[in-house]
């Protein structure tokens, strides 16, 4: 019984790999990045633009969201009165519970038209980054909040006895002792950002191109699967499974990094 979960993990890897086999047998993996374009029906399988899309949007979202998330957790632990902190935590929990398709709907109806006023068409890398940053914020807040709560209270008593100001306490005591926890939080956020499909699919515009500016539309790996899977046949279908395999590998690397960070923490 207990091995069911292990079996599912293996099955996912095996099946996604098996279904991408028809492509990998006939096309060398190098061509996935050097072909002239993504045009699977005519035998061109360049995934580089979509890989770039995923990387740019995820990196932007994490870079924006991680500091905001850490600041939110600092707010809950060191600045807000208890009742405000409780309310704020409830807001974060509700944010975590909102389905990604609702984030996408809001992004499409509100954020995209607003961005389009400055720089059409609005559906863009920037829209994806903004929506995704809000979506993955709760992950960081929850991890950072738990990490701050684990810091021994003697540290803070010592700081108070030395007459340190609140900001100095946060800057020199709380953040350094929570460093590894915060790093784990950022890695978890990256994992979520890379795997997110619906919100990104709805606000990024889905044009297959390497974005030159934040206002350019872009298509991510996940969005590509969701868009083309419905009608893909044969080698095209295999190409989509190959991009799923690529996603799976990226996620495994991120988990391995998080594991490494945690292991060092337990040794220290």
């Amino acid at each position, binding site marked *: *019984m*207990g091995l*069911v*979960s*292990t079996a*599912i*993990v293996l*099955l*996912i890897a095996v*099946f*996604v790999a098996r279904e991408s086999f028809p492509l990998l047998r006939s096309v060398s993996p190098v061509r996935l990045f050097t072909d002239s374009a993504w045009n699977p029906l005519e035998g061109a399988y360049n995934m580089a633009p979509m890989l770039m899309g995923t990387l740019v949007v995820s990196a932007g979202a994490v870079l924006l969201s991680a500091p*905001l998330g850490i*600041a*939110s957790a600092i*707010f809950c632990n060191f*600045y*807000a009165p208890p009742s405000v902190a409780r309310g*704020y935590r409830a*807001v*974060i*929990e*509700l*944010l975590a*519970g*909102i*389905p*990604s*398709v*609702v*984030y996408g*709907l*809001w992004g*499409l*109806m*509100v954020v995209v038209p607003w961005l389009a006023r400055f720089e059409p068409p609005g559906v863009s890398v920037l829209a994806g980054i903004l929506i995704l940053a*809000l979506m993955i914020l709760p992950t960081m807040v929850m991890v950072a909040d738990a990490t701050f709560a684990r810091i021994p209270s003697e540290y803070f008593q010592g700081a108070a006895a030395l*007459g340190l*100001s*609140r*900001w*100095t306490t946060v800057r020199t005591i709380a953040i350094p002792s929570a460093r590894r926890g915060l790093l784990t939080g950022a890695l*978890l956020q990256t*994992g979520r950002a890379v*795997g997110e*499909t*619906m919100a990104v699919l*709805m606000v990024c515009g889905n044009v297959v191109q390497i974005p030159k500016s934040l206002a350019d539309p872009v298509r991510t790996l*996940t969005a590509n*699967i*969701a868009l083309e*899977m*419905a009608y893909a046949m044969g080698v095209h279908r295999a190409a989509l*499974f190959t991009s*799923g395999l690529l*996603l*799976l590998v990226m*996620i*495994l690397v*991120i*988990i391995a990094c998080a594991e490494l960070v945690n292991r060092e923490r337990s040794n220290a």
Partner: protein
Amino acid sequence: MPEPRARVMDRLSAILIWGVAGLVAASFVWLVGNVLQHGLAQLSFEFVTASPEDAGRGGGIAPIIVSTLIIVAICMAVTVPVGLGTAILLAEFLSGSSRLGRLVRRSLDVLASVPSVVFGLFGNAVFCQMLGMGFSLLSGGLTLACMVLPFFIRTAEEGLRAVPKDYRMAAASLGLSHTGTLAHILIPAAMPGLLAGFILSVSRSLAETAALIFTSGYVDRMPSSLLESGRTLSVHIYDLSMNVSGGDGMAYSSALVLMVMLIVLNRIAMWLSRKWSTQRVVA
């Protein structure tokens, strides 16, 4: 008296941190307010009892609610027995450091972070094609079950672990068998935790879209068997906002219905886990 520079820094950082918190709270209010404002306009009794018309631009969402409930029910019917079995194994039969326990835990971690669209690919290859279920409620529900399993197991395991050791000792001293202890003492005592895990899993499966688009499909008719295709609320929202011009209003109303369901479930889960933690203190 701190030097002025430090005091300025302190003041500035306080403003900044309150500002960030304000910004996040404002985005939340903006999002929810926006959905409420546009969603309430079409919301009526007919909306939840009528069938969609004109590709969803008119009518209601009754068949979609039914499909959603069926898919979630299939998902939970698989998740609960398998998940409970795994949780009992992890909490009661395997010590934290055993090799098998570590292997199972590691696979749960991996499973929890696999992107949902990859679950969709997997479900499409295994349930729709290999097992010949096609685009159907059954394929969708089974795919979701694979996806929510790690979340259910985690919460159920924590619930079981939180049952005080004394209970197990008392049961052992009364000569109760291991199965008897599980069925009569541990599972009832861990019930709030198990229920919280159940509700968490239901919320996850309600919120999911990407794993369902190419496993349970797009059809918006009332389903008449488990092997028929049907769309859930979240797929409906996606379809209306992306593929149907003029479907925005209905998309908002469906989003409102979905969010109300999720918030109610979230509150129940919070209440249960609070009850569970006070119980633990008393025990």
